[in-house]
């Protein structure tokens, strides 16, 4: 078994100029064409990504209208990662993530109605309106949240891996976090434990190059975040997170390693966030330029997938539009459901602080 972290051909220089944006994965090795998927799978991948996009566009609208409050972190631009990852795992596997979680929840199969209702703060939401945007949980799909403290959930993922090992199961636990989390102690402690104890966890760095408004070049002494795998004797690789097929291929390797060798993996998925950090910052103009944003939006993951499918000639534009219309209809249905749902009754204020149960 190789303990060498695998990387795509390195960009020309290791130490980049301060402030220069890091590539978004375009230089990563391409996935083998369509990565052995069937037309049916490809259609599902497109549907999953479009659903997230259309759903979150409605989220932004809901926020503007005051139907959604608090913090709202959109995933737009990163959908190939959630879709690619979820399309490779089993229903009995586990998923845990940070606060940019709606897209991942939808890709995992959490009810769009329940997610939108949670965002609207309604009784029918995934947490009955008590969680909000950052705390989507769904026990039915083993979706373990939605966590709001950067890096805080990474040791929790190691714990899920520990439980799998304890029970001699062969599930995996997927743990998503942004590249800014790699500077947090919790990340390092979790990676050490996962490798030390052979825990079947796949740690996924979604490197969208900005921790809130701070570019990775301004936050991270060594921008090669994958190097951290080596520090913990862990296998790892860096992939083009805008290409759903590349995501799937890397996942296949990591899943095999987790199920068969019981070893964790660290994967850097290089991507780009098309929206602001949350709804309160300008999409560009403060910490990144409009040119940079527009350049990166040319590698919209949905466009990348669309082009590949289109080139293969298996779907007509009309059929593509139909998939998009379906996604829009689901988002509309989720909106209507949430909007019509009641607020949580006040007597639920005090429920679920404690459970009355004992073993």
């Amino acid at each position, binding site marked *: 078994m190789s303990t060498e972290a695998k990387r795509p051909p390195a960009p020309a220089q290791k130490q980049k100029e301060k402030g220069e944006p890091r590539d978004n994965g375009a230089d990563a090795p391409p996935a083998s064409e369509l990565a052995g998927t069937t037309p049916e799978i490809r259609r599902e991948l497109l549907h999953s990504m479009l659903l997230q996009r259309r759903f979150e566009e409605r989220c932004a609208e809901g926020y503007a209208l005051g139907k959604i409050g608090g913090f709202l972190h959109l995933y737009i631009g990163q959908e190939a990662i959630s879709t690619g990852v979820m399309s490779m795992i089993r229903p009995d596997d586990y998923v845990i993530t940070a606060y940019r979680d709606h897209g991942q929840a939808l890709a995992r199969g959490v009810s769009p109605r329940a997610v939108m209702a949670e965002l609207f703060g309604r009784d029918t939401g995934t*947490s009955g309106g008590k969680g909000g945007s950052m705390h989507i*949980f769904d026990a039915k799909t083993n979706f373990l949240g939605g966590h709001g403290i950067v890096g805080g959930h990474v040791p*929790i993922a190691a714990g899920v891996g520990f439980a799998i090992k304890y029970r001699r199961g062969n599930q995996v636990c997927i743990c998503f976090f942004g590249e800014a989390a790699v500077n947090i102690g919790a990340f390092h402690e979790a990676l050490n434990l996962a490798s030390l104890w052979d825990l079947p966890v796949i740690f996924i760095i979604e490197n969208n190059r900005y921790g809130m408004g701070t570019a990775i070049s301004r936050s991270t002494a060594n921008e090669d975040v994958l190097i951290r795998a080596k520090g913990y004797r862990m296998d790892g690789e860096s992939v083009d997170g805008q290409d759903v097929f590349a995501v799937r291929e890397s996942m296949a390797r990591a899943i095999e390693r987790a199920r068969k060798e019981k070893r964790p993996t660290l994967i850097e998925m290089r991507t780009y966030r098309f929206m602001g950090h949350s709804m309160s910052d300008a999409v560009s103009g403060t910490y990144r330029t409009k040119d940079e944003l527009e350049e990166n939006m040319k590698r919209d993951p949905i466009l990348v997938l669309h082009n590949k499918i289109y080139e293969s000639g298996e779907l007509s534009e009309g059929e593509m539009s139909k998939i998009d219309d379906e996604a829009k209809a689901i988002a509309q249905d989720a909106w209507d459901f949430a909007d019509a749902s009641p607020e949580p009754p006040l007597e639920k204020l005090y429920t*679920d602080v404690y459970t009355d149960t004992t073993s």
Partner: protein
Amino acid sequence: MAVVTYRDALTQALREELQRDDRVFLMGEEVAQYNGAYKVSKGLLDEFGPMRIVDTPITELGFAGLGVGAAMVGLRPIVEFMTWNFALLALDEVVNAAAKMLYMSGGQYKMPMVFRGPNGAALQLGAQHSQAWESWLAHIPGLKVCTPGTPADAKGLLKSAIRDDNPVVFLEGEMLYNTKGEVPDGEHIVPLGVAELKREGDHCSVITHGKMALVAMRVADDLAKEGINIDVVDLRTVRPIDVEAIARSVQKTNRAVVLEEGWEICGMGSQVVDFIQRECFDDLDAPVLRVHQEDVPMPYAKNLERAAKPDAGKTIAAVKKVMYLD
């Protein structure tokens, strides 16, 4: 009833619960091969093996969070902190994760786990190793907080804590491990949230918890020689807190002293005083006084440390003051 040490009472509880439920496991620094920094887990590795008695690296945040994850998917972790002073590094997992998971998830994810270890000052360990954390932890909705003062309570409460489906913070007295007391034979359970009247008297109530319960009992014995008889209300669990037991006692004695190991500002005692003023306003014959650590980091020098700590002398003085005897 057998007389056992506080340490052995805890070990009995761990052993019995590990035997009872194979989802229960113990993890922490030096808990396995070393038999525990304070020997609470002595012999457990041999009996239960390394998958259930787990030595961790020195990585409090990491293994506390790991425990949270294991609890989310149905195991029942007991996370030992070598001392609660080290647990500050892990508080994000205790406060932001364990305490809130059930609520944030709308009831979907329970947290059947225990965070335990020694709490409070020992002798001359200096500022960073001599602190009582219960008021910090009791502040958090979603946590339960146990502070046993005797071997019987240590065993009975720990068994309840392990069986509880909520995250329980279990604060053991560092100076109590060698203390002895009677522990009922066989299955011995103490429910969480129920205080015990450890001494009975009509003249004044001393309300306390944890290690200070022993101090309060000594105070009761000393004052009895002077003809002063006090109630000692040992809260045993500070969250949930047994307000009825506090009120019952103060309504009888009409005077109260609240004794705790921690600091004054926002201490457990201020919460107890608040309950007293709400529940017993018309019953009080004197202002309630508090006895606590002086408002300084713990000094090292013997004489300064003694001066900083709450003790029997300070408590007796407070009782006499509320009885207008000084």
